[in-house]
């Protein structure tokens, strides 16, 4: 089968899984709504003011969209960071980039206000991107030794930078009114909420840009696995490539952090599972991660809002609960050296 044919098949299968997850998600929730009423609301045949229509169309669907988008963005960011560092453990939260983005977003909330929900969303993402880039550069400067990024140094640098930015965020939040603090602490745990159409569009646009930056260079990322010098000798502009992937992965991370808070380990679990099935080709992995990451986080978020209903768990708690064991497994099982 041709490469393109295989990719189409993989994406079709994953899209089916995503749709199945979305079907469960739209049926489940603390408001008991019969499947027939759900279908009616989805078909637009319910009274727009009815409980069914509001719950399905204004709460569940926007939340499903937000979860799928955030999961896809995080998984692709993981693929990007892993290819960039040639390390399967690299991931926005492990590298401290999420903490950096969270710091940026909190700064953004403190120093600026107003301008409507769309302007708010863009501004917070831009501040988040600043923080993510700052953290990423810091990790790189700490970890780079003689032109290489040794695995353990990279992980330690990520942990340290993550702790630093988390502490900086704590300092900033202590300046806040205690009544806003509850909201920030909740957000820092990573939570998906229904996002209104306009800011959801902004989120999709920003994440889409990050995705395009990475997937558009997926073939070059494969070559980067041969080593930077070998990639250059095959005609890859390695420095420009690395910068582009870094910015793309940081933008994906920042957009998720701005809209849902730092949600950990999605970028680790999803690419790892996909690699086991699909192999290492980034041209397949990156698009597959977009869809599979969406399905994964959607499933996690559906759990988060149903296990202790009507109360809700933070989805970040669930992803970390799944992700930390995978991290340990990868750390112990990985072969010497690279990917």
């Amino acid at each position: 089968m041709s490469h393109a044919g295989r990719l189409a098949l993989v994406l079709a299968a994953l899209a089916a899984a995503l749709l199945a997850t979305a079907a469960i998600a739209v049926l489940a929730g603390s408001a008991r709504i019969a499947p027939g009423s759900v279908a009616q609301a989805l078909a637009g045949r319910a009274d727009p003011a009815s409980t069914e229509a509001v719950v399905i169309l204004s709460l569940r669907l926007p939340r499903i969209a937000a979860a799928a988008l955030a999961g896809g963005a995080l998984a692709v960011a993981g693929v990007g960071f892993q290819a960039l560092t040639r390390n399967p453990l690299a991931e926005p939260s492990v590298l401290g980039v999420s903490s950096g983005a969270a710091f940026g977003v909190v700064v953004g909330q403190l120093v600026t206000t107003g301008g409507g929900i769309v302007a708010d969303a863009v501004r917070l993402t831009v501040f988040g991107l600043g923080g993510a880039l700052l953290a990423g550069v810091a990790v790189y400067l700490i970890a780079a030794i003689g032109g290489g990024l040794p695995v353990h140094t990279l992980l330690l640098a990520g942990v340290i930078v993550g702790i630093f930015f988390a502490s900086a965020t704590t300092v900033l939040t202590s300046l806040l009114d205690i009544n806003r603090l509850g909201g920030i602490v909740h957000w820092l745990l990573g939570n998906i909420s229904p996002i209104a159409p306009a800011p959801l569009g902004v989120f999709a646009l920003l994440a889409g840009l990050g995705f395009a930056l990475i997937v558009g260079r997926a073939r070059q990322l494969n070559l980067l696995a041969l080593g930077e010098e070998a990639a250059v000798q095959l005609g890859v502009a390695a420095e420009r490539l690395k910068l582009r992937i870094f910015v793309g992965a940081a933008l994906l991370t920042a957009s998720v952090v701005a809209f849902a808070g730092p949600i950990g380990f999605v970028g680790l679990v999803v690419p790892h599972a996909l690699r086991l099935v699909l192999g290492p080709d980034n041209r397949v992995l990156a698009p597959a991660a977009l869809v599979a990451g969406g399905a994964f986080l959607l499933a996690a978020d559906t759990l988060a809002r149903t296990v202790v209903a009507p109360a809700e768990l933070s989805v970040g708690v669930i992803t970390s609960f799944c992700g930390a064991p995978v991290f340990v497994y990868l750390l112990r099982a990985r072969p010497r050296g690279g990917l």
Partner: protein
Amino acid sequence: MSVLLEVRGLDFAYPPERSRSAPRFALSAVTFTLARGEILGVIGPNSAGKTTLIRLLTRVLEPAGGDIRLEGTSLRRLGRWELARQVAVVPQDVPPGLPFTVEQVVLMGRYPHAPRRFFETAADLAVAREAMEATGVDELAQASVQSLSGGERQRVTLARALAQEPRLLVLDEPTAHLDLRYQAECATLLRSINRERGVSVLLVSHDLNLAAQVSDRLLLLNEGRVARLGPPAAVLEEALLTAVYGCPVVVDRHAVTGRPMVQVAWSPLSAEGR
């Protein structure tokens, strides 16, 4: 024979911060030509500038002075992809843990021919298959490169370079990790590729005898300068090698090929000392 590669007055020094803890690798006024279809062996002690020369030929580094011309065009005027379509490097090995299959790695050699394409075409696959057959790894196409022996991996990297369909093949210490049998295989393979495809070869090697057996001419580098350039018999002279390597050598004749053979002249003292 027409000139493929012309190197004239090549100078290079690593920036000071990178040479702080390491010896100062450099090239100074290096001049030589490589003819179409020729095999040129580049030899010399450690830090003579061999690896730096490869990096300059592939624009991983830019020269501080002098010029490198490929078929009369300065490398400076060639794009990255254009250069990679003409010059292919066979590295010593693939990075440890590289997760790709043999076929995936060999297909990477097609990148410079259509860098904007997302997936390789059937035509690319045909070129890759042919390259794998030429180096005898076609049966391993779906195997992970990690699972291969050192000699097999070497042939995979060679196939990847052939898939680039280059005019010039640059080999970086091709036998560094190979035992005797694979060394012999490698030498034979190199000769046949050179003869059948008309590809010129720049063979960088520690192994003076391999270079002597395979190469048409040898370039001996010492401390970044050309110590001598010429046919193997003219370069592999006892006095010259003794001076360059700083240890006494004897040069013999190979029993079959009649080419020079270099051996370290163990002094009786050091032999007893063992």
